[in-house]
């Protein structure tokens, strides 16, 4: 697999460390009433067969945290953005849903 790092260009997969699915959102409170949300965040995964957005650390390169979009069935890589850009996009979507 080749990963297109927004900073370094296309780099081989062994330069990256994967952290897994970027879909779960960390709860913003540790109030006991949020236990269920924490349980879901820490343990439950959609584990899709198909497209996934996943955290990848460019540990052998620029050391930035990225979110790579990839197909888990074919290993086709669709693209990569910085984790910061992914988080802003996710926040915008969440706000859009609230409005």
């Amino acid at each position, binding site marked *: *697999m080749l990963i297109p790092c927004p900073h370094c260009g296309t780099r081989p997969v062994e330069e990256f460390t*994967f952290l897994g*699915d970027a879909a779960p959102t960390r709860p913003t409170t540790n109030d006991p009433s949020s236990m269920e949300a924490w349980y879901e965040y*820490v343990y439950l*995964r*959609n*584990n*899709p067969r198909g497209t996934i957005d996943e955290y990848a650390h460019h540990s052998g390169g620029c050391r930035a945290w990225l979110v790579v979009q*990839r197909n*888990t069935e074919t290993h086709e890589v669709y693209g990569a953005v910085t984790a910061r850009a992914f988080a802003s996009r996710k926040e915008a979507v969440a706000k859009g849903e609230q409005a």
Partner: protein
Amino acid sequence: MRYNVFSLIKNTLSGHKNWEPAWRQPEPKKEYDIVIAGGGGHGLATAYYLAKEHGLRNIAVLEKGWLGSGNIGRNTTIIRSNYMLPGNNPFYEWSMKLWENLEQDFNFNAMVSQRGVLNLCHTDAQRDAFARRGNAMRIDGVDAELLDREAVREMYPFFDYDNARFPIKGGLLQRRGGTVRHDAVAWGFARGADSRGVDIIQHCEVKGINVENGKVAGVDTNKGFIKCKKLGLATAGNSSETAKMAGMRLPMESHVLQAFVSEGLKPYIDGVVTFGAGHFYVSQSDKGGLVFGGDIDGYNSYARRGNLPMVEHVIEAGVAMIPSLARVRVLRSWGGIMDMSMDGSPIIDKTHIQGLYLNAGWCYGGFKATPASGWCFAYTIARDEPHKLNAAYRLDRFRTGHMIDEKGQGATPNLH
């Protein structure tokens, strides 16, 4: 027909033309008491023990591919019961006891070979940890021997004992561990289940799970709707996808694990050996090939093939342990998809849906567990309650904080 020396002689004299097929190729009936989704090792073992131990007959095993096409035929064939935690060790030791009598029990040669599993240690701290693990095993009645460096050298003189980074300090040996011919395990359980009336239906994929009023009603398949009272899911690698059909999200990810076999060599490594400074395990098959593997690739995958960096990583670890491996040629590598659970331990449990049972999350330790997994899952399905051997493998343990974290590393889907 039973296999024995007389049936062998009789069939030899008639030119091996009259052997009966080992199992039937039935079309699915409209309805079964119990349907098992997944005709791998665990699913077939479950059907076998449901019939043999619980006297149930109206059972179908549905397999989307051909029998034994999944991880039962893709693993490195190692059996052992060298676990430490209370929730794990009695279960794996029961599996070892079942392995020890399996061939007589299902009348099939599975080439169970208790050639010993040796885990190498490379630091004083690791030796202390092995002593602790060995003691925990012995408390549970499992055999364990702590070997010093010279005792290991006696067994395997060609290891790199003075490796600058990872010198070999000794090892933990379980003599009763070993290897089993993996395909024969699938075939033996399939034949044993079939002869007791279980329908094994190949190329029959479960496409949907029908639940009515909180109760399982049947499954949609490419061969039509099949009604059932109870449904057991044994689809490891693909468990999240199967559970989604019942509206469940599971605490696991699917990852690819690669395995390798070398060209055939003369007898070289007579047991199973694992490197303790990286992740590498090796044994030699009866055909002479070295069968070995290492870690998962490290990213979510359903692809059944990995990438080259892990091939390089595994072989580097192997050469660090056995320098002469550098001259051995690798014939093949392949991949299998693992249910990587969030604490490295499996799930054998009921679910919140009546009549729906889950067998999942085997990480990459499922092969050695095959008989006990089938035995416990059969018990859980037949009695509608877990046996005490699988009572710790609850689905809700992640919610209640009762994880079985053998490595003590917390919630990550890369344990085993």
